[in-house]
């Protein structure tokens, strides 16, 4: 029984169905995983060959991360087995998999906040000389490895103090420090911007050249298309098939993942003129991150913020919203106001979706309902009493509206797949019914079908007369969605593009170079 949809045209090679083609470094045979009786991965078989880049794609909650965690010893399969180079292996713990040469770059960042970058990199495999830890050498090697990835943080900085993107690079560096036979990347580029992505892809090609097998998960199908020798598609925990990579178009991949026809990714932009200014920010300065930034966003407008990693966009908005020390003159609907905390921002009708969903967005140990309503508790009250029935209704509605794939409405947030957590977070922010919505990385980790849905949501918001700011590292997304894009560089605004000028190359220019000569695009 094949659940693969018919493609428009025949794929040149038929699905290989994971049949061994050569000597596999790692072979998964009939892997299944159940969580509390719910099957999230069923009978998956896969061969990973040396020097091969093997992409795993699928919708949010399809079981990709679960699969990767099984391969790298973070969890143990309910059924099925693993073998390496023909010999059966069992990993009860991640370090056993690591010792066998398998490294995983986690989708959710897994670093100890209170430790330094170098301590995190060498955790559990410290270098020593005569029994004494050799800090100098570890620091030097760490610096070198980080520099290779284009990450400029000091090895002795505390992880808690460095930006999210750098944490991701540190995590990648950790997997690359030792020589592994299989390296697994679970959405490594979700928090990275163009330059870093390019550098990472180069490193992955380099791994391939050295005969390392790479497993690669991403919702950015363009990356998959560039990288993958093979693509394995998962849907609802089941294998759809394994296909030769270069023969698949992005549209093919999307169809295989979703199992149905997809609408256009970006909804049409509204043609009506945006209204009066909703939010005006003048001379916003966030010490150390952003300086003298002024902008305004109008009713019914989607304003994009673009920039490279470290441009200071996140910190700028956290400063404006009272989440970190900053100075700014703010006017909301023409009324000057001071915002000293997120509470005041919410009361004024400004919602903010953080880019760090694990650290700042969701209580992973808490159930879905309380997570959803946490910012909008007042709406679930009658008198002094919380109305849990209202909360349950809101959750059911959010689950349906945002297509959050949950196995149970009483799950905990940490049990959701990454993309579904992101959707829950979005639902949480929009539940406060803000008139200005600031969304930092709206589609991080969200699959292509749902991306389209989220874009529709954002368009709906502005259609209702709200104003929306979208901060994104995906330039394509900004171009597809926004009416106007402000580009930041080194904490300052380096330019603004709209209309014809709104192209990826122009944004990249403004984001990287001192004086950019913008080219006219768009019309072709």
């Amino acid at each position, binding site marked *: 029984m094949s659940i693969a949809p018919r493609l428009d045209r025949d794929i040149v090679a038929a699905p290989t169905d994971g049949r061994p083609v050569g000597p596999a470094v790692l072979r998964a045979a009939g892997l299944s995983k159940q969580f509390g009786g*719910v099957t999230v991965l069923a009978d998956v078989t896969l061969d990973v060959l040396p020097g091969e880049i093997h992409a795993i794609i699928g919708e949010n909650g399809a079981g990709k991360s679960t699969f990767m965690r099984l391969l790298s010893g973070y969890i143990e399969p309910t059924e099925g087995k693993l073998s390496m180079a023909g010999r059966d292996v069992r990993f009860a713990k991640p370090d056993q998999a690591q010792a066998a040469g398998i490294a995983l770059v986690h989708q959710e960042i897994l670093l100890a906040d209170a430790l330094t970058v170098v301590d995190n990199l060498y955790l559990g495999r410290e270098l020593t000389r005569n029994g004494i830890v050799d800090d100098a050498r570890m620091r030097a090697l760490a610096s070198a490895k980080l520099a290779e990835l284009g990450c400029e943080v000091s090895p002795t900085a505390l992880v808690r103090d460095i930006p999210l993107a750098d944490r991701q690079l540190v995590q990648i560096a950790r997997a690359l420090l030792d020589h592994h036979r299989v390296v697994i990347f679970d959405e490594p580029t979700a928090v990275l911007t163009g330059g870093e992505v390019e550098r990472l892809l180069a490193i992955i090609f380099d791994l391939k050249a050295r005969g390392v097998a790479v497993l690669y998960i991403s919702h950015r199908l363009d990356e998959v298309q560039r990288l993958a020798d093979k693509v394995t598609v998962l849907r*609802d925990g089941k294998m759809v098939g394994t296909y030769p990579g270069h023969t698949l178009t992005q549209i093919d991949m999307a169809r295989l993942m979703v199992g149905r026809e997809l609408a256009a990714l970006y909804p049409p932009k509204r043609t009506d003129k945006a209204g009066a200014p909703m939010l005006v920010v003048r001379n916003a300065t966030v010490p150390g991150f952003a300086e003298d930034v002024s902008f305004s966003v109008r009713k019914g407008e989607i304003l994009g913020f673009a920039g490279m990693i470290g441009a200071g966009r996140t910190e700028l908005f956290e400063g404006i919203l009272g*989440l970190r020390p900053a100075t700014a003159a703010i006017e909301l609907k023409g009324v000057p106001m001071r915002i000293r*905390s*997120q*509470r005041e*921002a*919410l*009361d004024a009708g400004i919602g*903010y979706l*953080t880019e760090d969903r694990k*650290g*700042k*967005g*969701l*209580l992973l*140990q*808490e159930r879905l309902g*309380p997570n959803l*309503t*946490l*910012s909008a*508790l*007042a709406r679930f*009250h009658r008198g*002094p*009493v*919380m109305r849990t029935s209202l909360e*349950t209704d809101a959750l*059911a509605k959010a*689950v*349906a509206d945002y*297509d959050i*794939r*949950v*196995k*149970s*409405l*009483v*799950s905990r947030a940490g049990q959701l797949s990454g993309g579904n957590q992101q959707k829950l977070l979005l639902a*949480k922010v929009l539940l*406060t019914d803000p008139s200005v919505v600031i969304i930092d990385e709206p589609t991080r980790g969200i699959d292509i079908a749902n991306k389209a849905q989220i874009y529709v949501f954002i368009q709906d918001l502005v259609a209702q007369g709200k104003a929306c700011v979208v901060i994104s590292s995906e330039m394509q997304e900004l171009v597809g969605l926004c009416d106007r894009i402000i580009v930041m560089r080194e904490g300052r605004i380096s330019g603004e593009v709209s209309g014809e000028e709104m192209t990826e190359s122009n944004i990249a220019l403004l984001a990287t170079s001192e004086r950019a000569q913008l080219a006219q695009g768009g019309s072709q």
Partner: protein
Amino acid sequence: MTALIQSAPASSARQYRFSWADAGPFLALAALLALGFLINPDFLSPTNLANVITRSAYIAIIAVGATFVISSGALDLSVGSMVAFIAGITIMFMNIMAPSLGVWAIPAGMAVAVVTGLLCGLANGLVVTVGQIEPFIATLGTMGIFRALITYMTNGGTIPIDRSLREAYRPVYFGTVAGIPIPILISAAVAALGAFVLYKTKYGRRCAAVGASEDVARYSGISVVSTRTIAYVIQGACVAIAAICYVPRLGAATPTTGQLWELQVITAVVIGGTALRGGKGRIWGTIAGAVILELIANLMVLSDFVSEYLVAAVQGVIIIIAMLVQRFSK
């Protein structure tokens, strides 16, 4: 999304399912009662049980407050000294008022107790939140302060309550309503109110959220400072109520009043299933924990196995076993 829609009803049914983890403290309680009965049948005599549960009322009432503080991710070591301090203030005030107000000095004194409790809690809360001092150290400091104040107020001796108020006040500890001792009723009321606030109000949600993750709370528009401060204020109110029940028992406050209660309170909360790292509070478990502690002490006296010197050891062992049973019954 058929899968979803099908699975949703099944799982919302699960919500009402019996949870072994939550039942842990109650199972431990039942086991202890059974053990007690085997050792000495008098253990289950109504008088003995009534005595023990009445005695556990103070710790239970304070521990309800501690459940808030602990689930908000903090700790309060000062509660024992605070009981003594509030009891001292209350008695002094009642004694001063007795000549003019007569028996009405008692409710007036109770009001003073509550106000003092709220202020003490507020002080603790502000030192911890605004002062940003580790709760352990901050409340260790205020513990010394409250203890020293009651020692100072009593000159190291005793402040007894005025004889004229003694008999009128006695029923608050020794009286019964419909056969149930008043302290038990009060602690049940405090627990019910606590459970309501923690589980059924905005504040309860926020309290648990702050304990689970300060950052997430802050980014959700919750003020960590005020949420945690309010938890300490609630703790102060609970301590005041405990002090109000305490005073009529012996009719006096001394510098040894409430000594080491803080440890009992924290133990009761933890035995009850609340995690010390915060984010989760179990009011009813806490009550069970307080009763368990008092039952263990009672069992030590009622049994004849244990040398007087070793009572503390056996108590320690039983507590550890109770925790182990709880942990591995999951």
